[in-house]
């Protein structure tokens, strides 16, 4: 019933699309993590009004579907003078969306670091920057790592939606090949397999780095 031969012939195009998916995923994930970290730090150490503003950002981007955010930026943007190309829109949308989630992960991470550790650091006269670098970040890394891996997986799966703004990634390219060859079901199977493998790989890497970083684990207080 299923015939994958016709699709396999298109492998070079599929691999190129895989490259697009992978590239957008990695770049936007790093940018989103950086943005999320800055937001979390600003909310912890910044003035109150900034905290409210950033909280609104987090609530709005976590409370609406990524698809709607993408539509708004891509099709609404030109009406307010923001006419970006599909791939920059994809990177920007994924970064801002992921940043909101990452900031909550880091915020929870900061809060989970025992107060005593921070107080002790304050007592011995460490500055805020030093406390952040020497105490908060290393101690929370272990705590937030599994959540970050989860978030990476969420972002990977969201890249499938980018096909709607013409980004030539896996879902778009395999879908097009599927309709050209009338191999609809086969193409969906292949697509499922690609994402599943990537997600499993991501999980394995996550567990591996958790084991590697376990020396930072602190005894629960």
């Amino acid at each position: 019933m299923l015939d994958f031969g016709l699709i396999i012939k298109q492998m070079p195009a599929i691999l190129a699309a895989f490259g697009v998916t992978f590239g957008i995923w990695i770049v936007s994930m790093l940018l989103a993590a950086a943005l999320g970290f800055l937001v979390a730090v600003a909310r912890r150490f910044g003035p109150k009004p900034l905290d409210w503003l950033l909280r609104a950002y987090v609530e709005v981007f976590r409370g609406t579907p990524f698809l709607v955010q993408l539509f708004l930026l891509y099709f609404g943007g030109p009406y307010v003078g923001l006419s970006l190309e599909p791939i920059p829109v994809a990177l920007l949308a994924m970064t801002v969306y992921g940043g909101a989630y990452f900031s909550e992960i880091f915020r929870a991470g900061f809060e989970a670091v025992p107060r005593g550790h921070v107080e002790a650091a304050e007592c011995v006269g460490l500055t805020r920057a030093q406390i952040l670098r020497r105490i908060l970040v290393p101690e929370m890394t272990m705590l937030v790592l599994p959540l970050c891996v989860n978030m990476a997986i969420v972002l990977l799966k969201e890249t499938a939606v980018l096909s709607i703004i013409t980004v030539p990634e896996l879902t778009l390219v395999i879908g097009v090949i599927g309709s050209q060859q009338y191999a609809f079901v086969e193409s969906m199977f292949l697509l499922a397999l690609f994402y599943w493998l990537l997600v499993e790989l991501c999980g394995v890497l996550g567990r591996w780095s958790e084991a590697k970083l376990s020396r930072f684990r602190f005894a629960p207080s």
Partner: protein
Amino acid sequence: MTPRLFELMLWAAGATVLISAVSILIGLAIGFLVCAARVSRTRWLSTPAAVFVSFFRGVPLLVQLLLIYNLLPGFGLYVPSVVAAIAGLSLCTAAYQAENLRGGFMSVPKGLLEAADMVGLSPWQQMRRIRAPIALRLTLPALINEAILILKASSLISVVGVVELTRMAQNLAASTYRPLLFYSVAGGLYLVINWLVAGGGSLAERMLKKERA
């Protein structure tokens, strides 16, 4: 935006809420079963459950929906659009809820179960009276989170032919040439719905706590 168009957006939001709510509940039921299978000592129960969780968490919902809609009829199972949408959302959330519940069940204090053994409660009674209520209470925040995720994920079900909030916004944005307006309104409606869900969730949590005290 005319009142008529806003009314259409509200109807579409209603479809989003209804389909999501049904999917969450069905997903919770399936999640219970998968969780039970997952923690079972029988290999041929726990392995398929683990594969189920891995598959539905590892494949984008978009792809799952298309597979359900276009593949199952090939096996003689006719799945209309709304059923495909609910099935896709339910199975996806079931995989996540099974994992949440697993965490909940593992946190049920051992002592309670030993005590239940002592007073002679059957395993079924232990499940109904002790383990399930405690696990549910522990996983309530995660359940609320899941509900919000599914409400947002339902924006994809138009690929199997269901008109919901996002699709309605897309249609009306095209016919009125006002994408900024309609996508903003759609975003606003999602926000309101999710705030209500989150608010309801924390209310339920507080009530459960009070009941306990």
